[in-house]
């Protein structure tokens, strides 16, 4: 029983990180109908920005909560800038091109970030500094152990998701985003600067990925340039599972996937962990392509 609860706890903490990445996919897909393959690599860059900025400020020597907040802020801003550049240089020139060309470009950007990362950051794993160590040891009762870092990651993720929910549903920008995702042309006829809104959407999604990068660095302190590939793909699966384009759906899908993975690792074979996400994807697309919370769109001729 304790073991089971332990797996559940691990699953939720893993899922909350997938959720942060999945939100970026879902935002971008909602607005452009594009799978931003490079998103997982933005997440990787977020972890590296966190690593180098905390070394720069010397936070690896004296950890504190303030340090964590500052580093996360830097990483989020850095990733937002990267997201802006990717959109501006690689995707915007192709706004009117066939979908398949944009898809190929997205794959190209993703691979470029991965391998340029190997070139400039080094292919060997780096150790992410413990910039924040919560007071006290593991929490929990009896044999059940909960790492306070895991709890903190969950809290921060939830806070960021709430903030995103606020931005999307309560602000002018959010309303513009929803309008653009509904229909580009009509939105621009109503005076919405669609290109700028799309840029903001990319920046928002990339900032969340940057935050996820720092949080992953805290829990799994080994970071390397290819670390974004699998979490990126899995977060995408999570977004599809919840219904792509749907913010709540992405979070629910991500937590579900995190739980499923943690249970597969716990009770079956750890080696099948990476295949699970894709199996889930194939099944969901065959049974309910719109996802759990998605609404199917009928295709117009």
């Amino acid at each position, binding site marked *: 029983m304790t073991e089971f609860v332990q797996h559940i706890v691990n699953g939720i903490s893993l899922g909350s990180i997938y959720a942060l990445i999945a939100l970026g996919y879902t935002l971008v897909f909602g607005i452009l*109908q*594009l*799978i931003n393959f490079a998103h997982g690599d933005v997440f990787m860059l977020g972890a590296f920005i966190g690593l180098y900025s905390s070394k720069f400020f010397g936070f690896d020597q004296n950890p504190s909560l303030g340090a964590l907040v500052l580093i996360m802020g830097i990483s989020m801003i850095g990733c937002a800038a990267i997201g802006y550049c990717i959109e501006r240089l*690689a995707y915007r*020139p*192709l706004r009117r*091109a*066939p*979908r*398949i*060309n*944009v*898809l*190929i*470009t997205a*794959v*190209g*950007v*993703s*691979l*470029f970030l*991965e*391998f*340029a990362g*190997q*070139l400039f950051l080094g*292919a060997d794993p780096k150790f992410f500094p413990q910039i924040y160590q919560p007071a006290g040891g593991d929490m929990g009762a009896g044999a059940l152990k909960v790492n306070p870092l895991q709890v903190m990651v969950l809290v921060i993720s939830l806070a960021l998701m709430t903030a995103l929910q606020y931005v999307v549903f309560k602000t002018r920008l959010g309303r513009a985003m929803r309008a653009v995702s509904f229909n580009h042309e009509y939105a621009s006829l109503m005076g919405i600067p669609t290109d700028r809104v799309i840029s903001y959407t990319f920046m928002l999604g990339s900032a969340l990925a940057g935050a996820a990068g720092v949080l992953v660095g805290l829990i799994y302190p080994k970071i390397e340039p290819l670390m974004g*590939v699998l979490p990126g*793909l899995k977060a*995408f*699966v999570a977004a*599809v599972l919840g219904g792509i384009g749907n913010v709540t759906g992405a979070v629910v899908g991500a937590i579900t996937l995190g739980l499923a993975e943690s249970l597969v690792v716990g009770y079956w*074979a750890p*080696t*099948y962990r*990476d*295949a699970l*996400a*894709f*199996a889930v*994807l*194939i099944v969901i*697309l*065959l049974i309910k*392509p719109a996802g759990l919370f998605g609404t199917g769109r009928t*295709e117009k*001729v």
Partner: protein
Amino acid sequence: MKSSAGWLAALAACWVMHFFVQDYSRSYYFLIFLYAGINIVLAVSLNLVNGVTGQFSMGHAGFMSIGGYVSCYLITQLFQRSPALFEGPLSMPIFAGALVLGGIAAAIAGYLVGLPSLRLKGDYLAIVTLGFGEIIRVILLNVDAVGGARGLGGIPNLTSFGVVYTCVIVTVFCVWRIIRSAQGRALLAVREDEIAASAMGVNTTRSKVSAFVIGAFFAGIAGGLFGSWLTVLTPQTFDFNKSFEIIIMVVLGGMGSVSGSIVAAIFLTIIREALRPLQDITKLDFRMIIYSLMLIVLMLTKPRGLFGSRELVKEKELA
């Protein structure tokens, strides 16, 4: 009549060449030649799916691995039981049979992946095929009968210049003729506008699945050639980067252009080797950086690839 003579002449030339180059079969340049041939088979077969039919598949390495593992497992088992069979003239038909069986296994997998493609489009299909390739890799890692993570070793080396280029000629011939048949025009129609195609009476489902099945079949054959040449197959060889390498050949050559794929496959095989000295000095894999930049720049400036859907030779000459 004239056209089939051309194909047969190519086949004959390939076997004449085979006996000339046989003595150099372990030299470096020979190796490049051989890889170029295998890459041509892969690129041309993927072009049928991605270029001609417009179904963006990112799992070609998965089909390649299925074909490779099946045919190599068969010849390895046979080799362990009766090595004498591989001494005599029987070795060629055995290898051909194993390659075809591997191709059929890959084609069955292609059928299974083709089915979801009935419901999925564009990006979704791309990621499902990518996921499919990953699932195959993970399964191969976990199957002890084919060596798991250690890989399948001790495969007899039956791949030769003649065999590889026979496969190249057969693949190019089949794909070329398919594109220029009624079925091939149906595939092109699906790429251009699926709804219009189905309104004109094209069975879009059948067209898409058949493109997947045929593409997978030839990828499986390429896998068999590859495995028997290396005499060892590991699941790690067939990761996403392998699929990506084939995709860039198709995109660079031009989606839908068979000769474009051939030229791009040769070009990229040579580039890869030409970059090797640089890689030895810096210990870094520049290849993927160059590939990915090439892909982005190509999409921004010349999205139809170098050849578009044109061919090097006029249609009449090889119709």
